[in-house]
């Protein structure tokens, strides 16, 4: 055993106790409040969030943890956002999961490490109202992606799972 002075050992022990106390007192509260979601939105609030990004190409992706193709394409969106952020791309994710599935949403986001904001559709109300407000031609199928040009206008809709190349081609065309 290394020969530490007693005062140093006491200091180490006290420091360890202080850290444990801090973790015991602070961690449960933080864990309860911590969320990787940026917030909850209805259709109007989503439109406002998109409008705030005017001047950029905005990609909005609707996903859910129960949707296998959504989970499959999500890593491509994470990669795409990293590659095109400096060129003017902004990505917004919107989870359509039910409130009871929020722990699954948190777990999914923790594993996916997106560097872009992810919201969830506000609970309550009729899903049809949300779907119609986002795009009257959207049937409610997910994954579903909408691209907005730098002028803030809707430019492309991508229904179903896309490849990285599909996303890249659509985004590149709008960034030109």
């Amino acid at each position, binding site marked *: 055993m290394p020969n530490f002075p007693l005062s140093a050992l006491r200091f180490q022990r006290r420091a360890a106790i202080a850290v444990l106390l801090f973790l015991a007192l602070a961690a449960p509260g933080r864990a309860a409040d911590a969320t990787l979601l940026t917030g909850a939105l209805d259709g109007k609030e989503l439109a406002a969030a998109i409008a705030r990004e005017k001047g950029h190409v905005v990609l909005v992706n609707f996903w*859910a943890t*129960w*949707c296998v*193709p959504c989970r499959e394409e999500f890593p491509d969106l994470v990669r795409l956002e990293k590659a095109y952020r400096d060129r003017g791309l902004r990505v917004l994710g919107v989870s*359509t999961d*039910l409130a*009871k599935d929020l722990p699954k949403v948190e777990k999914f986001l923790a594993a996916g490490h997106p560097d872009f904001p992810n919201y969830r559709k506000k609970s309550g109300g*009729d*899903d*049809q109202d949300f*779907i*119609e407000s986002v795009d009257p*031609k*959207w*049937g*409610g*199928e*997910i*994954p*579903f992606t909408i691209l907005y040009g730098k002028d803030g206008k*809707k*430019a*492309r*809709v*991508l*229904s*179903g*799972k896309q490849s990285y190349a599909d996303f890249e081609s659509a985004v590149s065309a709008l960034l030109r």
Partner: protein
Amino acid sequence: MKTMRTLLGLAFLSAAALSALAEGPAIGATAPPFELKTIDGKPFSLADAEKANALVVLVFISTNCPYSNAYNDRMRDIANAYAKKGILFVGVNSNSTETVQDAVDHAKKNGHTFAIVKDTGNKVADLYDARRTPEAFVIGKDGKLQYHGRIDENYEDASKVTSPDLKNALDALLAGQPVVKAETKAFGCTIKRA
């Protein structure tokens, strides 16, 4: 002139990009006829089904979509209850990722005794512009589309449904009344096209 042509070209391209979502038949329009085989190998003709029944309900379904599977019991119950009233319920499986055997096993497991057709190459899904599962189309004896949309608004809990839209449409049509909500929407799984 060149600028004008460029602008027109751009406008055309924008419209084409935005209209990437195809259009299916509108309410009141003729439902596209088709012939397919059921998953137990029998021929199915929509035209013949229309003639032989008061109404035909096509529901695009999946064997592994959680949203579609949440409606397995409701689909079975609706099919059985309305068969007595002359309504034919037909499941359409257009998912390229699901085989005929998958559909057979799924129907057996869930007590689905209604006809299920396999839409290989998603030709019928394309004709109707069906996008998700579950998604219902109700067709009258005259071959016209009378209802398009969801089964109800609450996929999570059948006991808390407040808007049983498909049943409401069927009841209205059987009573000779117009369908109040003829087009409805809900979240669902994308149909996996070939």
